[in-house]
């Protein structure tokens, strides 16, 4: 008797849920009438600065929407989570400090689990809800969204610094807030060559890559290899580390056999830390150099004492007055980002740069649309991020806002700057 009821009952329940979704969601996704409940408005947005509200006219008091996708549960969640917290915290902080000319910013954000299809769905949804700019995350999804971003004229920053995105001829609405992965690798190699010479070696060193097996991992390799060969280094060995691997000994053995002196890691912190620990137990004596996404405090936390001496190219320095504002705000609000200072500051600063473009558009009295925000961003010259990055400059022909970074090294469990700002030139 019961069984007879379960089928129709479950179906009716499922149908009613679906109907509820169909009934509720169109309203929630309509561009003009998104109810507050359907958005992830940070607390700051709902408590928009009262002072700002009164000084502006009623029409302009409505929030400015920015869309964002983060990887909170997927393959790169370890670094994306602090990055997302940085972006959300910046929006909150900005709103508490008057917003954009009195208008609050509303950040529509959601986890996409490093899944390209999910990223597309969320992008479409947020665009439908009237966002004026977008903050993406990975290389794969940023690439996949390229045609849509261009078509929708949607100013887009992302945490992917693939060199392909820096040329406005192909990607007119993508902006890079950090040196491209290619530049980062070349800077890392420049440091390695100097370091090798400083150690009194005369013959050329040997390089190897240990990378995430994805577009993100492979993005800088061609440019890096060209630079290495131009400087008399043999073609570096390319070793992909499989996603979700729990032991990288086979990959490291391959590197050991190649006799590499410097290993450049283009991956996120967790697999990088695993590689460094495995290398130690394998007795592999190489200098690891981490690019952006593994050069952070998480690496130190995960690899512990084994991380000592690892070098990293950190495009967003977690020191300096700009970083202090972010970190102090986090402390004040009790935001726990797992000690990943540099990723938190990175998210904060990336959002700050995007907002700077929007702010400039508003200040110039222009309508908030993609074209105007793009023009405003392109006219940013020497935007000061408080020492987190070199001053940011976008032009109509170059969307790589920052060309220089400092090389850091882990000393006594802390990242310490060992060079001044370097460029790939």
């Amino acid at each position, binding site marked *: 008797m019961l069984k*007879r009821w*379960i*089928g*129709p009952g*479950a*179906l*009716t329940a*499922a149908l009613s*849920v*679906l109907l509820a*979704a169909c009934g*509720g*969601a*169109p309203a*929630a*996704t*309509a*561009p003009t009438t998104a109810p*507050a*409940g*359907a*958005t*992830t*408005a*940070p*607390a700051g947005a709902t408590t928009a600065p009262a002072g700002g509200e009164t000084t502006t006219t009623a029409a302009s008091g409505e929030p400015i929407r920015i869309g964002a996708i983060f990887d*909170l*549960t997927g393959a790169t969640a370890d670094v994306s989570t602090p990055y997302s917290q940085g972006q959300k915290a910046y929006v909150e902080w900005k709103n508490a400090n008057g917003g954009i000319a009195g208008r609050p910013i509303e950040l*529509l954000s*959601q*986890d996409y*689990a490093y899944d*390209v*299809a*999910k990223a*597309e*769905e*969320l992008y*479409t*949804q947020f*665009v*439908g809800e009237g966002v004026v700019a977008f903050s993406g995350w990975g*290389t*794969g999804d940023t*690439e*996949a969204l*390229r*045609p*849509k971003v261009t*078509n929708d004229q949607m100013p887009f920053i992302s945490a992917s610094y693939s060199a392909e995105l820096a040329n406005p001829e192909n990607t007119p609405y993508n902006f890079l807030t950090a040196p491209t992965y290619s530049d980062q690798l070349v800077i890392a190699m420049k440091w390695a060559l100097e370091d090798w010479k400083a150690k009194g070696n005369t013959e050329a060193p040997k390089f190897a890559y240990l990378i995430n*097996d*994805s*577009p993100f991992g*492979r*993005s800088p390799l*061609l440019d890096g*290899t*060209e630079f290495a060969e131009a400087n008399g280094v043999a073609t570096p060995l390319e070793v992909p580390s499989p996603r979700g691997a729990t032991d990288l000994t086979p990959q490291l053995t391959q590197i050991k056999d190649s006799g590499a002196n410097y290993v450049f890691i283009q991956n996120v912190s967790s697999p990088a830390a695993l590689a460094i620990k495995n290398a130690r137990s394998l007795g592999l004596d190489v200098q690891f150099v981490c690019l952006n996404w593994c050069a952070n405090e998480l690496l130190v936390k995960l690899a512990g004492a084994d991380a000592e001496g690892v070098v990293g190219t950190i495009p967003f320095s977690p020191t300096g007055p700009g970083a202090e504002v972010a970190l102090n705000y986090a402390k004040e609000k009790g935001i726990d980002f797992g000690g990943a200072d540099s990723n938190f500051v990175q998210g904060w600063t990336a959002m700050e740069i995007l907002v700077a473009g929007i702010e400039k558009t508003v200040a110039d009295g222009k309508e908030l649309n993609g074209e105007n925000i793009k023009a405003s961003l392109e006219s940013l010259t020497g935007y000061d991020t408080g020492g987190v990055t070199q001053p940011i400059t976008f032009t109509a022909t170059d969307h790589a806002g920052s060309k220089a970074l400092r090389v850091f090294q882990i000393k006594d469990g802390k990242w310490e700057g060992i060079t001044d700002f370097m460029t790939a030139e």
Partner: protein
Amino acid sequence: MQSGTFHSTYAGDMALRPYWPMRIRIILIIAIMLLFPWFGNRYWLNLVNTIGIAAIGAIGLNILVGFTGQISIGHAGFMAVGAYTTGLLAAHAGLPMWISIPIACIVAAGVGALFGMPSVRLKGLYLAIATLAAQEIIIWFLTKGDKIVQMATGDRRAVFFGESLSIPPAANNVFGIALKGNNDFNFYWVIITCLVLTVLFASNLFRSRAGRAMVAIRDQDIAAQVIGVDLFKYKLLAFATSSFIAGLAGALMAHYRGIISWERFTIDISILYLSMIIIGGLGSVSGSIYGAAFMTILPALLSNISRAASGVMPAFANYLPYIQQGAFGLAIILFLIFEPEGIVKMWRNLKDYFRLWPFSY
């Protein structure tokens, strides 16, 4: 009240929809399909197009798994073949999609038949592993193919597949009519037409000799062989047909999205398609559509609920992404516990319940 199914003509016996309620229902569905894009916004069009493509792919897989009983974990690989064939033809040869998509389907069918060859000797789990190999080989080829081209030409920057392959918008052309303007709206018609054709094909396939042979192989391959079904031929045919339709789904996705990368065709996607047909209903064409819709709408629904919830309970917001993933898994498990035969069975139960009410025995 009806006491049974009676037909007085051969035409009546062969009709796909012999009763009036069924005809009214199909008319309603057609009307909704025709009216929907005029009212749906971009988000809904995107969602429905995604479901449409997934449904085509799921029907393709159901032909192989549900009807012929050959397990395949390489479905996403065959979709990749279709997507990359049409993508390369559009990008390098400048062919419009109405020419390149059929070519892509045929190529995918060929590749599917090739990888289907082990099915003659292998069954069940062993075949699953053989198709898993197909999946991995195809993805390996897509990720490392550039290396082969680079070694062959000596040009290190030579790009064939690339990390991602952009499809020129000019290729989005159907019989000389360029698809311009609202991409989601235009592709709705392309996708829905392909879906209708696929549904008609699949529904009729299993009323033909070939289709019945496939079903016979699923039910008992030795018995099928004894009554004269050529196992090798029909198993390969099933693989080819299934891959042909997978290729269609992949090719449509390529043109709709405008850019493709191997990341869209990983083993996760193969498993997603398997779960679609298991949840929708193995061996059912409509079940494939229900399954595709369920597996596309459920995550979107959960994501919307989680967004709504994070507005109400900000303190809770940090945990929502994990709960969302857990809820997805839970929903699937509950579905399988309460109706292992899939959504299509639930729909049937519901119809029976109302048809026989109040004497439901």
